[in-house]
């Protein structure tokens, strides 16, 4: 008996494309989430200017009975400037690719360009914050480095600093509920930090009324953000794999993590006249004499400023353990 196998009668077309694209590993983008957003007008020059009035001295001295007015105060203000910058990238795609490839090349390249642009927005904000925000070295950990790993007291200290500076918290608290394993969550600032520190958060333990509370143990997850890992004291922790890490630069040569803790209006993201997220497609007609190449590109305008320097601190730390990741 002769059996016909694929060795003698194989398929004419060996492969078929699975129906969906695989996902692209993409970091969570936390910095843009916590920014104030401002748009500069068109024809508005190169620089966005913010004005913040200064507080007047409260009149705590009584007038007495002299009938004489006290001296007038001179109102003052602070001015913060930020210069607009423009960014962009794109791809040149030959018409044969569009004509012959089985998948929708223009569709998925458009999507990747959009993600690249959003990621650029976040990375620019990240590096700007590292360069411009005041630094507070962690000292509550026990690893003997400078900065140390994060200890519970560091969370308390940075929240105390921001409270003393009269920063506004982002989130109101979550009241406790009668659910097993949950606990109330304080009103909170945000901390933007690295996923590499999650194991450190899990190991924080407790000190008096302060302990790490996993997001899973909130009374309700309704207000939790997708990247929220948990909370400590008055700080809710958002993690991302693209949070800033300075490799090997601590006093002992370990990795240094810039954990940005901030309140409302601490950082402002600025665009110009909606000049944000321009996806530009030019069909091959606009290329050379044979009209062979299409282009897909993104372009955006962005500036950024720390608009409340008192409401932001980089709580700089190392890790408790270099294991993992």
């Amino acid at each position, binding site marked *: 008996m002769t059996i016909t196998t694929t060795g003698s009668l194989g398929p004419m077309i060996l492969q078929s494309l699975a129906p969906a694209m695989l996902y692209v590993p993409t970091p969570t983008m936390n910095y843009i989430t916590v920014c104030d957003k401002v748009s500069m007008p068109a024809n508005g020059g190169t620089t966005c200017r913010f004005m913040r009035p200064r507080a007047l001295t409260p009149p705590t001295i009584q007038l007495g009975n002299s009938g004489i007015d006290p001296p007038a105060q001179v109102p003052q203000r602070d001015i913060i*400037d930020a210069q607009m910058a423009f960014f962009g990238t794109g791809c040149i795609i030959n018409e044969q690719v569009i004509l012959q490839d089985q998948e929708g090349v223009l569709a998925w390249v458009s999507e990747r360009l959009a993600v690249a642009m959003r990621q650029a927005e976040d990375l620019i904000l990240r590096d700007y914050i590292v360069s411009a925000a005041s*630094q507070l070295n962690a000292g509550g950990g026990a690893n003997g480095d400078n900065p140390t790993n994060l200890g519970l007291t560091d969370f308390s200290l940075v929240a105390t600093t921001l409270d003393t500076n009269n920063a506004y918290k982002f989130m109101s608290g979550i009241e406790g509920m009668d659910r097993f394993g949950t606990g109330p969550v304080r009103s909170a600032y945000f901390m933007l930090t690295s996923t590499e520190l999650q194991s450190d958060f899990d190991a924080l333990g407790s000190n008096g009324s302060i302990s790490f509370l996993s997001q899973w143990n909130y009374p309700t997850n309704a207000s939790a953000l997708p990247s929220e890992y948990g909370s400590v004291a008055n700080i809710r922790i958002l993690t991302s794999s693209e949070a800033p890490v300075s490799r090997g630069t601590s006093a002992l040569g370990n990795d240094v993590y810039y954990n940005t803790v901030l309140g409302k209006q601490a950082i402002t993201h600025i665009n110009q006249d909606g000049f944000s997220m321009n996806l530009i497609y030019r069909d091959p007609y606009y290329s050379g004499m044979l009209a062979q190449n299409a282009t897909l590109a993104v372009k955006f305008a962005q500036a950024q*400023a720390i608009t409340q320097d008192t409401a932001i601190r980089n709580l700089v730390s190392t890790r408790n353990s270099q294991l993992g990741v």
Partner: protein
Amino acid sequence: MTEYSKLAKGSFTATNATQFVYLPFKPDFVEIWNYTNIKTAGASTVARAWWDAGLIDPVGSTNPTMLEIYDGASAVVFDTVQTNGISAFAAGLAFQYGPLQGHNLGNITEFSIATSASPTTVTTVGDHLLQSGDVIIFSNLSQTATTGMQQIAGIAFTVTVTGATTFTIPWATNGSNYTAFNTATSTGNVGTYKKVLYPYLYAPGVTVISAITNGATTTIDTTSAHNLVVGQEVAIRIPTIAGAPTVWGPTQFNSLPNNTTPGSPVYGYVIAVTDYNTVVVNINSTNYSTFNVNLPFANVPGATPAQLVAVGDVNTGGVQISAGSQLYPPPYVVPIGTTRVNSINGPAIQGAFFNNTRQGFYIGNGVAAVEGTATIMQEGDIVYWHAYFHDLALP
């Protein structure tokens, strides 16, 4: 094929420093003509240099620069610079560092730091290859378990080169709590430093304070370039060190808490910029405590450095025109001395936060591999360059 190729050309007069050329692209081929040496032949000089990003030396795995030089006998020969010749760069992300330098690490074999008043001298065994204005960060400066210079580890320092094997950093290490450090004799031969490849991607920003001179106005020194301008509004942060309350000292500078107008931060304004790391601020600090960097070795863990922070400005115009400048000059950084390095931006209000990311190529001071002494250019040389990014590169 040139439809999408990028071409650029230009010229400059060489200085002693690495020459950076900013471009709207990262080139894959660069050619240099040293007109000074082409016009007047001299022994051990370079007439022409060219570099291709795709060329990897099969022996050394380097990306060399090719040279046409006059050798020691003034004969025209061909040579290469194997490292630190022409290179392309993309300065778009923070936290990029050069290789570790330390005990038999990098291009040196040892380094030592002597105690002294500011500036402190660092001495290397082997050419450190740094240039004035470079920024470095030290780690592991423990001479023993309880002595050394861990106080300055983890801080970004601008270096001033004083010789091929010496450079200084702006910090006083003559306090009683500092001990001389040497990688050759430290326990375990620990101790490293590495170069921050692209400092000042955003400016102005936060810098570490190395000294404060009190008076009717206050003079502040920083460990790296402050990039502040006259009219800049600044905050000063003087943290309290647990267990060492006299370090850093003048907490009166702190913006908050403010006892006069509770809740309102106190700021100062820059009234003079002396150089890259010194500014004068309009704060009367006559009766303030004395700034003190004599941090005990044991108190280093968790110690936050004193900081000078740009928070705003009171300026109404952009950078003023000067000889040879654009009509509307862009904002700039000052990495060393008083030398301005323009950003690639358009004009902005002086003191505005600006983006200083950039790309292009640079020309280092590496020497000809065979001839042994010639560098691509020397101070005063007239150099013309062409840079390309090709549509088609095979393979």
